């Protein structure tokens, strides 16, 4: 590993951590505009984090070490995931260590910790949120795997950088199955990131919450880390989506100069802006599903991904 790749690897993670709240802030702005409201400032999420870091943390009396450690685990897992996903460059030393399936495992680890921490205090809401989160999670994971398999079939690798490099090599050959995979991925992204129509990130109704119910007992720096990890997760999912479906602009192997890196950065910002607006649009149109419709919704995502696989196999034959 050369020094320069290591620095780029580090730079990518730092960039992800730095701009993830910006992406959340942008989505919140778009949502507000679509509802004819005046929007909160773009930097609102940073102000929120700043506020939370300056507060004194309150812990429930029964909180165990697990409860206190979980925010750091979540943040660490999401930062590590950002290191694996090629958001700017594909020549990432860490990405060689873990492929996309390991990435899903990383997300699952974070979910397990978050759910355990939610149950740790023993309040009804934490337990309720944790069990709903596990339900959504175990239905979303197979659908996400199917989406990834779809891409793997096209390019013959389970490593995300290889996919992006593969795209760069066969620019013209866009497989129609990718469209199915993209729709399925969008559905999984919404479910996995506690967005509408599965969960409502803006609700104050504790009985309807999924993700928020697990955070009710967190405060100050712990809450800041969990919130930051949530926005990082959304950012990571967006970058997975870009790598799978919109890989244009990412600096591939061998493009080492400053210009490709700058272009990759500009492309990333542009894609995030568009993706954020699109997400806000989808969310503004939908109402929240009744919770027992979530399995139908995720089964649909799974089915669409499988259809994509079949389309691919049929077209190849």
């Amino acid at each position: 590993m050369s020094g320069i790749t290591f620095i780029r690897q580090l730079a990518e993670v730092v960039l992800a951590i730095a701009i993830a709240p910006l992406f959340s802030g942008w989505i919140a702005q778009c949502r507000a505009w679509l509802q004819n409201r005046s929007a909160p400032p773009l930097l609102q999420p940073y102000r929120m984090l700043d506020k939370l870091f300056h507060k004194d943390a309150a812990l429930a009396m029964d909180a165990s070490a697990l409860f206190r450690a979980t925010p750091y685990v979540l943040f660490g897992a999401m930062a590590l995931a950002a290191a694996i996903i090629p958001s700017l460059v594909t020549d990432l030393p860490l990405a060689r260590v873990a492929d996309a399936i390991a990435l899903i495992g990383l997300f699952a680890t974070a979910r397990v910790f978050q759910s355990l921490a939610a149950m740790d205090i023993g309040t009804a809401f934490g337990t309720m949120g944790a069990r709903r989160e596990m339900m959504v999670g175990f239905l979303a994971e197979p659908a996400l795997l199917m989406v990834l398999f779809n891409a793997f079939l096209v390019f013959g690798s389970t490593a995300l950088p290889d996919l992006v490099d593969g795209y760069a090599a066969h620019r013209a050959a866009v497989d129609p199955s990718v469209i199915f995979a993209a729709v399925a991925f969008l559905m999984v992204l919404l479910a996995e990131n506690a967005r509408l129509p599965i969960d409502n990130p803006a609700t104050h109704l504790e009985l309807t919450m999924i993700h928020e119910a697990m955070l009710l007992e967190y405060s100050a720096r712990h809450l800041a880390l969990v919130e930051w990890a949530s926005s990082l997760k959304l950012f990571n999912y967006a970058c997975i989506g870009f790598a799978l479906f919109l890989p244009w602009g990412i600096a591939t192997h061998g493009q080492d100069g400053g210009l490709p890196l700058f272009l990759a950065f500009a492309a990333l910002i542009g894609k995030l802006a568009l993706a954020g607006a699109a997400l806000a649009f989808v969310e503004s149109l939908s109402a929240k599903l009744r919770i027992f419709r979530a399995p139908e919704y995720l089964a649909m995502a799974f089915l669409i991904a499988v259809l994509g696989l079949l389309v691919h196999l049929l077209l190849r034959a």
Partner: protein
Amino acid sequence: MHMSFDFPAQATRQLPSNLACRCVKVDAASWRRAAEELSASGGRFLTLWGADDRGRDGRFRIYAAYLLPQDVLVLEHDPGDVANPTYPSLASQFPSALRMERAIYDLLGVASTEPDNRGWLRHGGWPETVFPLRRDVDGTQQYPVVSEAYPFLQVEGDGVHEIAVGPVHAGIIEPGNFRFSVVGEKVLRLEERLGYTHKGIAKRFEEMRQHDGYRLAARLSGDSAAAFSWAYCAALEAIAGTVCPPRATNLRALALEHERLANHLGDLGALGNDAGFAFGLTQFSRLKEDLLRTNVAAFGARYLMDYILPGGVALDLPEHASRALLDQYLTLERDVKNLRSIYDEHGGLQDRFREAGRLEKDLAAKLGAIGLVGRASDVCCDLRVDHPWAPYDRLKATLVTQTSGDVAARVQVRFGEIGESLQLCRMLLEDVSSGPIRTEVPLAEPDRLGVGLIEGWRGPVMIALETGPDGAIRRCHAHDSSWQNWPLLEYAVLGNIVPDFPLINKSFNLSYSGHDG
């Protein structure tokens, strides 16, 4: 409806009221029999209250008010022995009476025969041996608040667990404690505990002057200020024998309809939001805000506080303001129509609304559903239609009902009533009866009981006012229809899933403050 027994004429007296109202003195047997007969023949139970008259004639008194097709019937009962006063419970005929009986015991120490004697309003705020509404308690004593155990009914079985929600919630809303017994996400039982916002309003009334009481009445439940202050003024004016000038009566009705409009608009937005459709909240909030600002221009207050006062109203409506209102109704009507079609055609929203929190007609009627919640379950009751008082006797309002009894029905009733209210407002504005907006209300004779009954936006609100000497208030009982409909929520939520409760609760949108007093 026919009652098979008549009350003796010498025990019956007419009560001053904005509706036809009579009061009958009954003994325990007649009290019980009347409840059975009224329940069997479809009479509506309105409210229950008690008074400490030991200083006057050495007795306690218990009153029950029923709504009959032709008038309001108030039964007056002497619960006997002042050391241990007891009266027959109405709860087996009218289940909504149970909590009122518990509240009466907490405040007055007059017990019903009902075995469920858990405190309802007290919450450890004063000792069990102190009854604040009795006249020997002057309301200045301070007691340390003690934490009291409150046994909720336990549901046992495999996999059953409890979720305790409130009284402190994740959002800034009124406090209520909801104890769910659930299996997985399914609700097996819900038990409410209310009373957290008990403010001692009834006691406070007794320190006020008759001509000031309307201000306290308006503040009992802030979203029903016009309804409560009108009910208060109606009772006082009836006792004093004052007739409100026609123009003032029209303006009062205009204010009442504005209150209905503003609350329905707010609720429709909140219902959309609780189903995750934030667009609905923003749009309806905008419409509500526009209306509230108009209220400032037309009535001098956003939430109509102190607009309706004894003898009339506080402000006249100038001609140009009246024209501006008519213009605003046009845009409001158009916007609501557009939003209604968005709500009706939104698959996700309708999927959440339909079948959620269904309250069948039979059950609703049996449990005494009233007001908007009743109308959504096809229980036809609206004082403006079936017991119209001035000026509604002239307006001929149309009843808006739905049959399905679910959240969707309560949404549709709100949409329907917005249209109907706008029609009424137009008729009120077109009727240009000019003239004074206020008349003098003389001091009422002491020891007279009067009843004011007004259809607020939730349902009927009632004030039973008893005058004291020299313009004092002897006793004032304020009743919000939420007393009737809170117990129904426990039934509406059965078999639904936990995350649908907030939506069902919002579709009822009952008052905590109005209920707790």
